[in-house]
């Protein structure tokens, strides 16, 4: 999963003009200016093929799946199930793993927090996470630990937002039952050495959840070589629609878990007082799912696969290098994250002197530059940095050095107002 596995000679260069033409949002202007979308960490823009796939469902099928005995319902069911296969292939999930569709990364993590942690943990058990996590990969564990009496422990963090992996053996012990860690920080882009963390967890027979919300959309992933038990990610950050996410789980773990959502479509027999449940993964998909969303997620996976995840990762690495270089021109910039760019994905967090991020973001907006400002759902990491927020520029396949230039030029406007 580390970038060292990329062979630059292999990586195809992206045909940016061709790619950008497929994104309707990139044809828009913002505040009358060329639109520089640098908020991909929050959500991605959508290519035409994904928008068309949603529309295709509503205008050509529109039926509910399962149990439909008519043409359009059958076809919708087939397309829904095909996405499960596409997603499985996309992350290298073999037959010993399952794809569960959720509302997003957040719900996926909660499925594990309830169905696994709350079911099996008790006092004395430990759950290991980090202070660089998105709240989605922290708060559910806090509550699950509170409910079960288990203890939450943290892999220590360095002042630059990287993890102190030398301390792994101290934190991950025989009491550790789950290690939940991000594959890529949504604040700094830092990508911990997952292989090392997972090896430490395996040595203690702890189960591992990887938060792939930022990583999976930008890098090739293979859950088999990674050997995690859970991988969670969101459709909307990977050129897909809002309202759909993925919980990948190893079958042997998923089999033991209780479902979070009970209702129709996940039961076999229902009597007045009790019900029996379908096999995995269906047992974890109660209720009418986001059918249009799942089908469109399939189109997003097709799109990304066609562009090539190696090429996307390489492109973003180039953009980050360019960003860091241009940032050197601006003395007022305070930046966050490890200096070693090889440990980082395409995210660049900064502050302009002591200007509040909100003010900086509002002025960049006027220049057509969309960035995110604030604590990025990562308050513990903000405390590590001793700030209340940052300005975050996050890249994706359709970004170009022009977008970065627009950002750097926009800084002049901040200087103009705040000196």
């Amino acid at each position, binding site marked *: 999963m580390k970038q060292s596995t990329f062979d630059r000679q292999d990586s195809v260069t992206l045909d940016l003009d061709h790619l950008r033409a497929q994104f309707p949002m990139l044809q828009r202007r913002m505040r009358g200016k060329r639109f520089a979308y640098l908020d991909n960490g929050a959500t991605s823009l959508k290519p035409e093929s994904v928008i068309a796939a949603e529309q295709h469902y509503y205008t050509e099928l529109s039926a509910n799946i*399962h*149990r*439909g*005995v008519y043409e359009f319902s*059958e076809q919708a*069911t*087939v397309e829904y199930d095909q996405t499960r296969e596409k997603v499985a292939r996309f992350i290298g999930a073999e037959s010993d793993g399952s794809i569960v569709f959720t509302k997003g990364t957040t719900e996926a993590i909660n499925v594990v927090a309830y169905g696994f942690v709350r079911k099996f943990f008790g006092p004395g058990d430990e759950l290991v996470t980090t202070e660089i996590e998105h709240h989605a990969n922290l708060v559910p564990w806090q509550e699950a630990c509170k409910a079960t009496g288990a203890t939450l422990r943290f892999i220590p963090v360095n002042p630059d937002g990287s993890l102190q992996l030398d301390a792994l053996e101290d934190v991950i012990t025989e009491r550790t039952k789950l290690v939940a860690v991000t594959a890529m920080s949504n604040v700094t882009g830092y990508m911990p050495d997952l292989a090392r963390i997972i090896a430490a967890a395996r040595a203690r027979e702890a189960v591992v959840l990887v938060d792939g919300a930022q990583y999976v959309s930008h890098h090739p992933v293979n859950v088999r070589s990674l050997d995690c038990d859970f991988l969670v990610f969101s459709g909307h950050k990977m050129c897909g629609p809002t309202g759909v996410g993925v919980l990948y789980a190893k079958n042997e773990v998923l089999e033991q878990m209780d479902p979070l959502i009970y209702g129709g479509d996940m*039961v*076999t*027999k229902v009597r007045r007082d009790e019900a029996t449940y*379908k096999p995995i993964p269906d047992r974890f998909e109660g209720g009418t799912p986001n059918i249009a969303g799942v089908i469109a997620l399939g189109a997003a996976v097709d799109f990304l696969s066609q562009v090539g995840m190696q090429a996307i990762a390489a492109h973003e690495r180039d953009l980050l290098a360019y960003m860091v270089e241009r940032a050197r021109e601006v003395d007022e910039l305070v930046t966050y994250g490890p200096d070693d760019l090889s440990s980082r994905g395409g995210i660049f967090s900064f502050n302009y002197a002591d200007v509040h991020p909100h003010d900086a973001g509002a002025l960049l907006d006027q220049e057509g530059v969309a960035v995110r400002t604030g604590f990025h759902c990562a308050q513990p990491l903000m405390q590590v940095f001793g700030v209340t927020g940052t300005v975050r520029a996050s890249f994706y396949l359709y970004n170009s050095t022009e977008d970065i230039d627009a950002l750097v030029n926009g800084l002049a406007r901040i200087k103009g107002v705040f000196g």
Partner: protein
Amino acid sequence: MSLEDDLYQEIILENYRSKKNRRKIEGASLHAEGANPSCGDDLELFLSIEDDVVTDASYEGVGCSICCASANLLCESLHDRSTQEAREILKQFKGMLLDDLEPDFADEISDLEAMQGVKNYPVRIKCALLPWNTLGGLLDGVQ
């Protein structure tokens, strides 16, 4: 092709209506339940086996015409077969529906080929397969 030609052809309807094998076998050597929760098919399959030969086969339960016809054909085709032969028939039947393979059933059980049209109706394949998957489970228990 109309549904009537493909799916609801005479052989299938006859097997669906037949009550011959629609019964419990008391003291059956093997029996198991199989269900398709999504369409409500729910069958129990009974086998009498003596010296590794199927001496009687029957089923009970609820299911659509395709499911029941398939179950009846299954019972018919197993009579006097060894469990090894039963496994071979099962393999051929599944290959016919799932992998589009041309089946090669013995003449006396060639009625099974009537189910071939089901493969054009993806949602009905699981109806046709339910009794056979249940059989598979039973045979896996016999070594």
